[in-house]
């Protein structure tokens, strides 16, 4: 194997090379071309020194087969794409195998090309070792001085030093141009987060009709109002404000979990409510909490009946329903807001909006 010193001496004693010399083989020309790029092919060896051996023919045959299989699988892909029943049908049937079959044929066809040319390149082409000079020597000090002076000369020619006013005025002019670029972007995008007090109100806010206000009903997902009989003891349902689009994402902060506690748990919850100053928030044994986790806003919706804990499946915050939905485990730091309940004409309604901020925390939350 040649070393770096060999290469250098080689460069010095390079013989004149005639490309048109009939004596020179094509490989010699290739080697000469590489040398002119500071590359020395130090080892170049056919993997089959004796041509046409069994091993070589076997490899060639194998690659040939691979390429033929590519044709087969590609055709199978197109045939399946066009004629296989593809339209989704409910239940089981041929259509279920449409995508897997496409994947299988396409994958095998591509793997066929891949392995075919990989084996061709790796096993049939000659092995070689070439050495290229990296040229890591940095430019000489002289070169650097030349380039540096060229740059400095440009600055001199501009004459900013002699005419400082130009530079100052240019900077003074350019700064507002940057602002021009930023203004439409920021100005167009920026939104006041506290428009209509939106971060502190939800769909449960009583609707004002002149002097009277109408309380918002608790409704099912389909908009029908909820009666106390709809929830059996120990059960819970998700309810939405009974306003237009109340159950849609337009009121993403409004989903509420309505729980019908068992009598003993209800006692406990009521006592806890008293302590928190939420004495009249429950209605009978019914209690309602915002479903939107105070941690990251996922719906805290896994209710464990035995322990009265509410678990948020995103980050496992757990809230104890019988203790004002206080966070008892996990990353949440704030209790779930409670919705004050009442019953009007046999249907549940919200006495008022939440008295605490719903959803994930933010800087200016009081």
């Amino acid at each position, binding site marked *: 194997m040649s070393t*770096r010193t060999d*290469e250098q001496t080689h460069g010095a004693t390079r013989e004149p090379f005639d490309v048109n010399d009939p004596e020179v083989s094509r490989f010699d020309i290739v080697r000469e071309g590489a040398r002119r790029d500071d590359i020395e092919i130090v080892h170049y060896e056919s993997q089959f020194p004796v041509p046409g051996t069994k091993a070589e023919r076997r490899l060639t045959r194998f690659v040939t087969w691979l390429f033929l299989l590519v044709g087969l699988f590609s055709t199978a892909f197109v045939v399946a794409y066009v004629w296989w029943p593809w339209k989704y049908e409910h239940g089981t049937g041929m259509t279920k195998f449409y995508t897997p079959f496409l994947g299988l044929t396409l994958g095998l066809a591509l793997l066929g090309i891949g392995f075919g040319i990989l084996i061709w390149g790796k096993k049939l082409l000659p092995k*070689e070792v*070439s*050495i290229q000079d990296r040229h890591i020597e940095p430019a000489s000090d002289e070169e650097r001085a030349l380039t540096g002076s060229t740059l400095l000369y440009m600055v001199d020619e501009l004459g900013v030093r002699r005419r400082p006013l130009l530079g100052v005025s240019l900077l003074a002019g350019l700064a507002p141009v940057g602002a021009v670029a930023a203004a439409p972007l920021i100005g167009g995008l920026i939104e006041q987060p506290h428009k209509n007090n939106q971060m502190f109100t939800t769909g449960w806010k009583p609707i004002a009709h002149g002097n009277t206000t109408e309380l918002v009903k608790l409704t099912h997902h389909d908009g029908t109002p909820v009666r106390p009989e709809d929830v059996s003891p120990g059960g819970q349902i998700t309810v939405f404000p009974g306003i237009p689009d109340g159950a849609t994402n337009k009121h993403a902060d409004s989903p509420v979990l309505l729980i019908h506690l068992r009598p003993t748990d209800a006692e406990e919850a009521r006592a806890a409510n008293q302590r928190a100053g939420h004495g009249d928030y429950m209605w009978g044994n019914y209690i309602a909490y915002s479903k939107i986790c105070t941690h990251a806003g996922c719906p805290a919706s896994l209710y464990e009946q035995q322990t009265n804990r509410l678990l948020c499946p995103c980050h496992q915050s757990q809230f104890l329903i019988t203790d004002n939905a206080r966070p008892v485990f996990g990353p949440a730091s704030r209790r779930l807001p409670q919705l004050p309940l009442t019953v009007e004409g046999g249907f549940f309604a919200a006495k008022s909006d939440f008295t605490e901020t719903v959803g994930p925390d*933010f800087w200016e939350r009081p």
Partner: protein
Amino acid sequence: MKRRRFDIAAVPGKAAREVDDRLQVNTPLRSLLNKVFPDHWSFLLGEIALFSFIVLLLTGVYLTLFFEPSLTEVTYDGSYRPLQGTHMSAAYASSLDISFDIRGGLIMRQMHHWAALLFMAAIVVHMLRIFFTGAFRKPRELNWMIGYLLFWVGFLAGFTGYSLPDDGLSGTGLRIASAIMLSIPVVGSWLTSSIFAGEFPGDIIISRFFIAHVLLIPGLLVALISVHLGLVFKQKHTQWPGPGRTNSNVVGERMFPRYAIKQGGFFMIVFGVIALLGGLVQINPIWLFGPYEAGVVSAASQPDWYVMFLDGSTRLMPPWEINIPIGNGYVIPPLFWPTVVLPGILTVLPLLYPFIEARINKDRRIHNLLQRPRDVPGRTALGAMAVTFWVVLTLSGANDVIADKFFISLNAMTWAGRIGLIILPPLAYYVTYRICLGLQQHDREVLAHGVETGIIRRLPNGQFVEVHQPLAPADEHGHTELEYVGWVVPKKMNRLGALGPAIKGFFYPIEKPVEAPVSPGHPPVEPRSEQQEIGSGKH
């Protein structure tokens, strides 16, 4: 008129002359064809990322032809019966159409998703290779930084991408993202309402994510990848040390034909694997999750794997809320630390790592030779520490599933994660450091005493000794004076040619072996005088 004979053999030469007359590409082309690349399997990890990115572009363009980035409410009437008549966004409906009503749309969607996962995985594994072999050292600090930024830009591409279908799972992810932005002190609520154009979810976020996902982020990725590859090309690839390899040369194969052919084949294999995954392995079955509704979530909601470490850090974070009692009072929610501060640290520290390491080592030289991880125990141990930190976070991102499947208490899993996150990384540092030193020590032993032959010899006095095969002519004590150079030391006799060449053939040999393999009963105990260099037996 004399008809000129058309000589087909002369056409390529003539055409080439015409092109060169105009563009003068002859000499640059030759040096491009001849450019030498060092070869090692670990240099191909980055290629997987590049090839997955190409598949992402191809399948992604296809998907844009059918996807409708809009939150307008529609009633689904496609062929997936369980959701017929459901109100949903146009984005979700068109994603369902891609899955069910566009011929071959599902495989494209699944290939796109799989390619994205593979893209990120390849980036991470490639980055580990670069880190543990010291390939980021001078002069390649800039490329390390670009590569590291590529991870985060890819992360954003992935997040904006899987938010687009607006299914139950992606909507939940979006909600968490909005909460994360909201948690930033002072500007949080302004930032969130500006991005969502009002309160979450608003009706424009999917359109904004769409343009980011199909234009802005891919544009940035293409630009960064181009610079990344350009720098590899300009600075030439690093290489492992070994016989004939120095800091100032590149030993390997010329780019054409063999190297380029192998690359092409590898691309097709990556593409093929993605196609197999896309067809055979279901991913993100959005039709099962239903449309996003703020009040609906399912258990085991996990993000894609490369986001899971942040999910894990969020789960492990204790509920530490900072209250600032000024005026009405201000809050820094606990969510801020694991999702804004931690990624911030994780972005800046690794970005500067090459400079930090060079400064500590007072190392200002240029390095083109790689280091084996065992030869730089400090860095390797630090890397193992970082990987352990990441693994604990990622596992914690799935702690509810682990708790469920292995019947462990969920709270116990969270506590295990919290404690593990503090205890395991330093432990990993210590263990890795010792393993590195042990491996080095063993290399030195082999250099001094030779390879263990596995032959136990009984001496006339009854003593048993193991016969060693020295790697160089030994002195009277059987010791050799070989310098430790930080490269592979042969540790098995067949590395020294003690066994004959492998016999090829499936049922019977294709060719008769030239000579029978040396029986293991006759070890070549005599040191071979021509063996001078320490090598792996490979080039």
